[in-house]
């Protein structure tokens, strides 16, 4: 597999991450155990609806896990990266780096 990456990194660029917002969500989840909806919204500076749709996309890909909870009476939904999410992100990152090194 490493050989394949070296040969053609474009194959390993993940379509799911071909979007600023989804890439941002995943980046944040790589360094935080979990993040709630409002923190993601503040981080990415986007509307509720926009964020929700991208979260749904990532959830359907199996890259993030949603946990619904409460703080007092308010709902507090948090997100976590799954094993598959970590792996996919690492591969995407490796492919990006490979491409940059390859063209230098």
């Amino acid at each position, binding site marked *: 597999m490493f050989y394949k990456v070296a040969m053609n990194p474009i194959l390993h660029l993940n379509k799911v991450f071909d979007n600023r917002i989804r890439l941002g969500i995943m980046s944040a989840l790589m360094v935080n155990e979990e993040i709630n909806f409002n923190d993601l919204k*503040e981080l990415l500076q986007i509307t509720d609806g926009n964020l929700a749709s991208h979260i749904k996309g990532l959830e359907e890909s199996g890259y993030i896990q949603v946990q619904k909870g409460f703080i007092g009476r308010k709902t507090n939904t948090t997100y976590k990266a799954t094993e598959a999410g970590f792996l996919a992100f690492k591969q995407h990152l490796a492919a990006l780096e490979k491409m940059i090194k390859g063209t230098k």
Partner: protein
Amino acid sequence: MNNADLKQQEELQHIKQMMERSSRFISLSGLSGIAAGTCALVGAYFANNELMNTHARVLQNLNPADDATVTLDTSLLNSLLGNRLVQIAILTFMAALVSSFIFTFIRSKRTHVSLWGTTSKRLFINIAIPLLVGGLFLLKLMLLGGVGLVAPGCLLFYGLALVNASKYTLVEVRYLGYSQLLLGIINLFFIGSGLLFWTLGFGILHIVYGVMMWLKYERQ
């Protein structure tokens, strides 16, 4: 460099930025450091005056004829002095806290990071733990009469707090922490010069750090 390459560079930059912004409180303003340092210098000036006054008074009272009254006087004076210096210290701390808060508040508005969000809370808790424990320890130390260790103690606990907190804010805070620790350790060998080291650490170092951070991140 072609366009596709530029896009990948940008993408990596974006990833890095999102990782930093989501895990560190980066709105700490350099101006806050300058403000806190200035408050410390003003506080140190008043503390120094206070020490000089007391010293002069003690010298005047120093009469070989009645040793007993002198010791009584000095112990009374000492407790008064302690109170007065403690008052100055508390006022200085409050002024530094409020003034540094203002500049960071302004910066947080500009960077769209809430001042009471996850990252700022994490930073606050991690700086507060060593500071509170250190404060209690130094209070007990003062009550037991170990006044000479208070200044190096302040520097050491503050340095530890900064090193700890640097994981949750600008990485440069770590170097400020190391510098405070170094000063605190040197101070241990010059116990009488506490105020000088205290002024260097809380005054000068803060201002130097603040100017450097402002030049690096905020100057437009």
